[in-house]
């Protein structure tokens, strides 16, 4: 029987066994005989050369079933999604510090988890498959590990010390995968280095691939990658961790067409890991979408028929359904009703973000800056409502340490302006703000600063003469903040927030944005 026929025969059984995963029928590729499986997006492809090379050693159906068991379990159990994959890679990288080795370690770990899960939870022929696979290097150790933890004779009982250590890892405890992959990588670290050196000495055609296929970004769609990065940004301890991992995957991400400009076809913009971090984090702070209001249209339209009676207006008679006759009870007339339709927003104003990037603020490219994150959340909210955002990023603006970004919809440019760090003194150039305010109709203003501004008096005076809604968020308590508060106390359009925990900034900003947006009707 040909491999295609075997797949057709085995697939319903395998699907049933794995509780009907939403995967297309696997296909056959003319791959090498060293690699059994290729996974691209959700398509599993079995190498015919691999199948032919094993055909003499075990039953054809068993080969296909075992390979499919392995492939499907990657979707159904480990890694499950891109976030898990990238998190495992991140943990492995903490141990080996080398991209290729961390990728290999992640692949091996996911294979061990997947296969062990299959052997424990499903009726599978994976053990028979591994018995017949040629083993070298790390694969030899892994086969010895399988022998020990599955209780199957796979003809490989070496590497006792390594296997003893590896067999103590709780592979099937999902919550402990982070800690487990670190232990796993630590144990096989020497082997990974050896393998890496050998790979570099070999010519390109002589590589020693993983028989069950490699795991890369090819396995995921752009949407899965986008979601995974968002979850990963929220899960990592700091910006540097995110940056390091994204920089490692930069080439693959760009090849896949993923850029900070968002998802889409074609080659994306070069990825700036810092911008991506704030973008993904800001996406996890959500604002409820406003529903379009339902409005009466103010005029009547024919709605249903009813019999015409004497005394009712002739104008409402529907001649088409009355057969041209005027006869009470038979003639049909229209009853009319006032129409309802979705109304329109009154329009959300544009927003101007004034952000302090002086030396007393956190550099957003080194550590997570909640000031920048808060500003990013506000921008996101306004951009989603099709309004524009402008950025005034300042340090010592009078000496040129400033960015004046005009009102626009380009998210990437806005984030670039927000993430710029000057680290100098703190002074505003009010002419710039006057210019920006003149470019839009009554924009909302968000100012995020620690208030230690050299020309604070001028700023207070300026805010006292404008009627825009101003949200001032200041970090820490100081005399300047008190002065600002006292100076603007009479202005009802200025809200001042003294933030004790920086983590609260995004929520404060979003709370204010929500308030502005729900009251924009009254405002305009």
């Amino acid at each position: 029987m040909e491999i295609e026929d075997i797949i057709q025969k085995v697939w319903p059984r395998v699907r049933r066994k794995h509780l009907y995963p939403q995967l297309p029928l696997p296909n056959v590729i003319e791959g090498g005989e060293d690699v059994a499986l290729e996974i691209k997006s959700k398509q599993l492809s079995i190498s015919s050369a691999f199948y032919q090379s094993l055909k003499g050693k075990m039953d054809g159906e068993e080969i296909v079933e075992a390979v499919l068991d392995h492939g499907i379990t990657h979707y159904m159990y480990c890694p499950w999604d891109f976030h898990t994959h990238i998190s495992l890679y991140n943990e492995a990288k903490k141990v080996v510090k080398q991209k290729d080795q961390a990728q290999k370690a992640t692949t091996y770990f996911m294979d061990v988890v997947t296969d062990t899960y299959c052997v424990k939870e499903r009726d599978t022929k994976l053990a028979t498959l591994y018995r017949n696979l040629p083993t070298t290097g790390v694969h030899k150790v892994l086969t010895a590990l399988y022998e020990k933890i599955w209780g199957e004779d796979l003809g490989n009982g070496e590497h006792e010390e390594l296997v003893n250590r590896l067999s103590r890892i709780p592979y099937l405890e999902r919550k402990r995968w982070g800690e487990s992959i670190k232990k796993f990588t630590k144990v096989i670290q020497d082997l990974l280095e050896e393998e890496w050196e050998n790979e570099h000495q070999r010519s390109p055609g002589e590589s020693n691939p993983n028989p069950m296929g490699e795991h890369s970004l090819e396995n995921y769609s752009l949407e899965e990658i986008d979601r995974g990065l968002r979850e990963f940004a929220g899960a990592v301890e700091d910006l540097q961790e995110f940056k390091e991992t994204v920089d490692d995957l930069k080439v693959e991400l760009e090849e896949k067409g993923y850029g900070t400009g968002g998802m889409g076809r074609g080659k994306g913009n070069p990825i700036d890991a810092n911008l991506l971090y704030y973008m993904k984090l800001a996406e996890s702070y959500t604002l409820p979408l406003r529903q379009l209001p339902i409005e009466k249209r103010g005029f009547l339209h024919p709605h249903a028929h009813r019999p015409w009676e004497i005394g009712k207006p002739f104008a409402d008679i529907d001649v088409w359904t009355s057969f041209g006759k005027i006869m009470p009870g038979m003639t049909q007339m229209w009853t009319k009703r006032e129409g309802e339709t979705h109304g329109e927003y009154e329009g959300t104003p544009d927003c101007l973000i004034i952000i302090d990037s002086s030396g007393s603020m956190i550099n957003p490219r080194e550590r997570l800056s909640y000031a920048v994150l808060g500003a990013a959340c506000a921008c996101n909210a306004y951009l989603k409502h099709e309004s524009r955002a402008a950025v005034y990023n300042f340090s010592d603006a009078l000496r040129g340490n400033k960015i004046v970004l005009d009102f626009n919809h380009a998210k990437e440019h806005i984030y670039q302006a927000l993430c710029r760090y000057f680290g100098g003194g703190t002074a505003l150039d009010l002419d710039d703000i006057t210019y920006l305010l003149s470019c839009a109709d009554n924009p909302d203003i968000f100012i995020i600063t620690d208030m230690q501004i050299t020309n604070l008096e001028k700023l207070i005076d300026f805010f006292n003469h404008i009627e825009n809604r101003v949200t001032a968020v200041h970090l820490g308590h100081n005399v300047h903040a008190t002065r600002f508060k006292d100076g603007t106390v009479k202005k009802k359009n200025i809200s001042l927030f003294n933030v004790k925990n920086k983590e609260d900034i995004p929520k404060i900003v979003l709370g204010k944005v929500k308030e502005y947006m729900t009251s924009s009707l009254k405002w305009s």
Partner: protein
Amino acid sequence: MKNPFEAFHHAGTRKREIPLDTILKSKEETLSKILTGYEDLLKNEAKDLVWLMQYSTVIKAYSIAEKGMEGIEYTAEDIEEFCYALDHSDQIPYLITGPAGVYISALCNHAQEEEIRLQLRDLNVKINLLGYRLPSNKQLIVEGNVGDFTGIGLDGGELIIEGSGKNYTGAGMKQGKIVVRHNLGFNTGHGMTGGELMVGGRIKGLGKIVGGKVYEKDQLIFPNEGIKPFYF
């Protein structure tokens, strides 16, 4: 009525017990016994409120540790797991590096293996007193840095530290060998009467040494013309 989910009922699942389950279960049990022994030691030591590093205190703690671990079957990997449990786990409310070191030393000294390798590079704390009384048939290799009083009272074993140690390393050692790949602190070899102490990096200061040999970067620095044996 036909069950619409009948097709899913036992579809391909078998949930069999595999040796991994047994290994993990036994590992958890062993760790729990080791932790109980350690907690007993802490309870005894807590009576003194402050754990003073005195010779009598260490001897007493060691004998309590030996009693606490009686009857536990463990391997070198279990000792390593215990070290990480001390460091990370919320099972142990407090880590006192002195008693912890005495307890780990007792575990190493009574382990079945002759060669024990502890990979402690990721530990946040530096454990004191590792290698205390290491007997002559044992080799203890520690990957990572260690704390004060490492290898004190060494009794013929070989202690290899793949990192740096702190003060009083090898104090009171009688025989055996301590190899430290990187640096050591003050009072190194204080009161040692025999054995060899070899340091790949630098020693901040020697203690009052009675006997034995001390090497720094392959150079014999004790005994030599400048530093004579001290007689208590």
